[in-house]
């Protein structure tokens, strides 16, 4: 896989690949993100958690400009996100996203889902895109389903396809927006396993998730958000052992007592 993702597993912390500063976003009158400052180093695995409505999804959706923001700046791999369509597309070509509801293209076969962006955005040849797609499908364990359509697969399989699709363009950054929240319980682990494998490859990841086991295992940093702000961030061990804010303590109590 490492040769599929065109990046070297280097020392984490050499340079900031994402720089978010003083980010503010409103939905109408609702202040959804408040003064977010966040720097992500190349290869870093960040897990974002928090109660629903806390702005976690909104935050990562700002990173590939699926959401517009009113104040502040986001620089992704040297490109600042503005209204400029070219810059947005430049960023999107380096950043892939995995959605809560998979969002596979139902009218295309699995293999066509994977090769769409490589062929039409990255101008790869059909054959190259196809070869790579098959390799990736093999990696996520569903190579034999390549010619099927998304609706013919289980939720877990669909989400693994979605991850393979996201990887197909050799992104530098992967964004995960609650990738396991829409899955039946017995399918969560098959998706998490793929994500854990991916984390070992050294790709930069930001995951919004409630899967604390996953966070403990792979995260370099965990960020806790509430009411549109970052309340606390820490490395996994201290995050769970010594939560400082009351809100995080409450949140951890609720989520870990399940």
């Amino acid at each position, binding site marked *: 896989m490492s040769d599929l993702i065109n990046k070297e597993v280097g020392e984490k912390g050499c340079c900031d690949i994402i720089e978010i500063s003083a980010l503010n976003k409103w939905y109408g009158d609702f202040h959804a993100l408040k003064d977010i400052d966040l720097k992500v180093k190349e290869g870093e695995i960040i897990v974002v958690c928090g109660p629903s409505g806390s702005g976690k999804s909104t935050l990562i959706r700002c990173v590939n400009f*699926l959401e517009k923001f009113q104040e502040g700046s986001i620089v992704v791999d040297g490109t600042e996100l503005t209204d400029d369509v070219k810059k947005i597309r430049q960023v999107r070509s380096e950043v892939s996203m995995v959605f809560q509801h998979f969002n596979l293209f139902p009218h295309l076969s699995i293999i066509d889902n994977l090769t769409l962006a490589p062929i*039409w955005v990255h101008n790869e040849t059909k054959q190259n895109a196809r070869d790579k797609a098959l390799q990736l499908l093999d990696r996520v364990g569903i190579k034999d389903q390549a010619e099927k359509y998304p609706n013919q697969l289980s939720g877990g399989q669909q989400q693994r396809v979605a991850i393979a699709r996201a990887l197909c363009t050799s992104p530098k950054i992967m964004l995960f927006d609650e990738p396991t929240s829409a899955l039946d319980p017995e399918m969560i682990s098959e998706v998490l396993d793929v994500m854990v494998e991916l984390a070992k490859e050294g790709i930069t990841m930001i995951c919004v998730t409630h899967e604390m086991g996953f966070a403990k295992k792979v995260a370099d940093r965990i960020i806790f958000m509430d009411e549109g702000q970052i309340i606390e961030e820490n490395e996994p061990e201290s995050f769970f052992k010594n939560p400082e804010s009351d809100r995080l303590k409450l949140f951890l109590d609720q989520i870990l007592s399940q």
Partner: protein
Amino acid sequence: MPIYPLKETRESPQSQIKVLSWLKDNLFSSLSNAALTFIALYLIYLILPPILDWMIFDANFDLTADNDSCGREGACWAFIDSNLKMFIYGFYPQEELWRVNTMFGIIVALAVFGSLIKKSQYRAHYIIGCFLIYPVVAFILLHGGLGLEVVGTDKWGGLTLTVVVAAIGIVASFPLGILFALGRQSKMRVVRFISVVYIEFVRGVPLITILFMASVVLPLFFSAGMDFDKLLRALIGITLFQTAYIAEVIRGGLQAIPKGQYEAADAAGLSFMKKTVLVILPQALKVSIPNIVGSFIALFKDTTLVLIIGLFDMLAIVGAATSNSSWLGRDTEGYVFVAMVIWVILYSMSRYSKKLEARFSTEHK
């Protein structure tokens, strides 16, 4: 704690006498249902025998008969036979009929060939090529030019005219409808405004008004020399009309696409055009197939309205044929025949729509 063993799966119990249970389930399941069944049977008894008598048992199938020797008890099918050419070709000159036949022949050949190369990677090229080249060929064949004698559109008529008007209306309004549907969803206010005004204006006006405008009012604005063809005016009117309806149908399809599809396409870095053509439209068109075909069926029926601006489609030919003194009073035969032909065409369209839906279905195969 008890443990329950897995149970065997059994087949569902079948009723002993299938016909009886079917009757009971479907026709006599309740008292009111039974009453409705009897009423329906009675209505069929009232209506069907006279129709069959007229069409078949009392009808005269002697194709050499003339109006007087045919008799008046039943249908006189000799009328259809002796006017068949008029029903199909209108007033197209006899010696040039091969041109119309060739035009229809080519389209059938193209369609057959197209279905033979279903798996070929060049199929899309083939289809686009057909759509670009065939109309030109068909126009030259039908209208003349390039050494062929010119046959004015006032001579076109019958089924030929019906099919030409419907086909051009369908082929031209489809892409235009897509553009207006996208325009109505556009973020650009001017584009959206123009689309909304156009669609709502046209949908608020009956087709007959548009045809009148095109044939009577429009020429008033042109100087005498600029007068252009009557059929062309009707075609433009019909296309403009149909475009608005197709646009609304496709807009319905566009609205059925979940937001996540747009987001996934955006997140992948697809441009607006690529997103629309590769991701959004294929899905929107797929869910719109039944309504699109429904709208085209309505258009096909509406083509009969060209009668009011003096074009003789197949329905109008009935009037023309029966006003001939040798076939006076045979309107019923003519209308029944035309109804059957149109029904066959429309029912085929409807079946084709079902087939298309099945072909594009990506549900559990």
